């Protein structure tokens, strides 16, 4: 029958596309509803960095599984998403306080096979000649990867479509069809769709979809802004960031008011076209507004030029912002809920959607086709977990 499938995936971003791929790989009939086009939401405004040292402890399982999946994912999906695997991240240390904090971080955050180390200014400049001389050294973080997030979402989609999935663009979900405590489908302004299971992958907008199912799953939007420069010859081999994010809370006096206000965790990388992406704010009061703020753009540029002086000679091509789907406890909602049948949550990945997409898609597909996730324990992400205690 028309518009009927085994699984109806809501949202065609990196998470929705990944879920669609892993589900269709099992032979199930999958339909994806996306109100714009692939990666029109947060995935289209992301940095594309996969960095273990900034991953929350609770998400380490999904992260580690994802990162080993990434190694061969281009082959598996039959597509090139500009994966730079096993590169490194260099976090510039500007002062003694940051140095001490970095020493502690490197000690605390050791994982088997994943060890960061502190290197001095000379060694830092050997790796990245363009960084400022005004630094003590840096944290060298190996086994960091990066990719083109839009191409990743398109890669999942292409592979899903080859496995039989149907992606519908321009299909904004305006309601869910709920019968006898079970979600049986969704409606758009022009069509209705039914499925045995509806999977909510709508990221920043997922709380609205959850509400349509009678489920309370709050989303805390966190905006991040970007500046893209004109293309230039390759001068930057990796993602260069600053170790300042570790000390910004304990030592606000070391930072400009705007760096505090916009929660700056600055970083720069150079894409394959030669343009540099400068980004790194975490704005907690943005709501869903994805406009850029002039003083944030200035903050990003001034910080970038401070750490990599030669960026100052480049022109800005464009600026944009994306909104991350944060949650009250910082973890995504993944799994079924007692509140309603036929509805699986897979949203709220905050700033880790790209990094966690492979294992997330795999886990959801395993859960929904085999009864439980096999490679990762996703029970802690249950949508029915207690809400965190309110902050005093």
């Amino acid at each position, binding site marked *: 029958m028309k518009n009927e499938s085994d699984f109806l995936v809501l949202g065609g971003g990196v998470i929705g596309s990944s879920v669609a791929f892993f589900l269709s790989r099992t032979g199930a009939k999958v339909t994806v509803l996306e109100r714009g086009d692939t990666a029109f939401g947060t995935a289209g405004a992301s940095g594309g960095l996969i960095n273990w040292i900034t991953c929350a402890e609770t998400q380490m399982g999904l992260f580690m599984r994802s990162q080993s999946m990434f190694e061969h994912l281009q082959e598996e999906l039959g597509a090139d998403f500009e994966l730079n695997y096993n590169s490194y991240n260099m976090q510039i240390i500007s002062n003694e306080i940051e140095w001490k904090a970095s020493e502690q971080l490197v000690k605390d955050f050791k994982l088997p096979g994943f060890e960061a180390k502190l290197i001095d200014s000379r060694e830092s400049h050997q790796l990245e000649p363009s960084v400022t001389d005004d630094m003590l050294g840096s944290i060298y973080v190996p086994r960091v990867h990066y990719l083109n997030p839009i191409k990743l979402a398109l890669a999942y989609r292409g592979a899903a479509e080859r496995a039989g999935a149907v992606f519908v663009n321009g299909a904004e979900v305006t309601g869910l069809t709920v019968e006898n405590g079970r979600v049986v489908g969704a409606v758009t302004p022009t069509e209705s769709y039914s499925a045995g299971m509806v999977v909510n992958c709508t990221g920043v907008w997922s709380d609205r979809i959850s509400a349509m199912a009678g489920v309370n799953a709050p989303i805390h939007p966190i905006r991040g802004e970007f500046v893209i420069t004109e293309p230039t*010859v390759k001068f930057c081999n990796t993602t260069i960031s600053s170790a300042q994010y570790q000390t910004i809370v304990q030592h606000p006096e070391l930072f400009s008011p705007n760096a505090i206000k916009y929660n700056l965790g600055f970083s720069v990388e150079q894409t394959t076209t*030669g343009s540099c992406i400068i980004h790194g704010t975490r704005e907690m009061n943005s709501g869903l507004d994805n406009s850029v703020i002039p003083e944030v753009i200035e903050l990003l540029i001034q910080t970038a030029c401070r750490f990599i002086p030669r960026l100052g000679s480049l022109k800005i091509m464009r600026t944009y912002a994306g909104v991350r789907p944060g949650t009250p406890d910082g973890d995504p909602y993944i799994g079924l809920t007692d509140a309603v049948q036929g509805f699986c949550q897979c949203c709220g990945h905050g700033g880790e959607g790209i990094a966690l997409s492979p294992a997330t898609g795999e886990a959801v597909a395993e859960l929904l086709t085999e009864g439980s996730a096999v490679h990762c324990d996703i029970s802690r992400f249950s949508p029915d977990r207690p809400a965190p205690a309110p902050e005093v």
Partner: protein
Amino acid sequence: MSDLSIKDHPVLGPAPVRRRVTVYYEGRPVEAAEGETVASALTRAGIKVFRTTEKTGEPRGLYCGMGRCSDCMMVVDGEPNVRTCVTPVRDGMRVEIQHGLA
């Protein structure tokens, strides 16, 4: 001046006398009129190739004349990505073909 110069014009009249300056294209001196753009000076001297593309090395030259298309970009006094169609000449200016990206 080469014969691309418009010395007497039916509407504009005779060319106003302007101070002559010298710019250097790939090391070679090119006479220019003070106040005109680098692109105009090079065009008058019959020079058409301003830069070459990054991937295929193809020649590019003046196109839109209003600072929007970036085809006329050259390395001027060591600085790359200078839009020569909106940059006035200066005596002694060094202008080089920009090969590829800045």
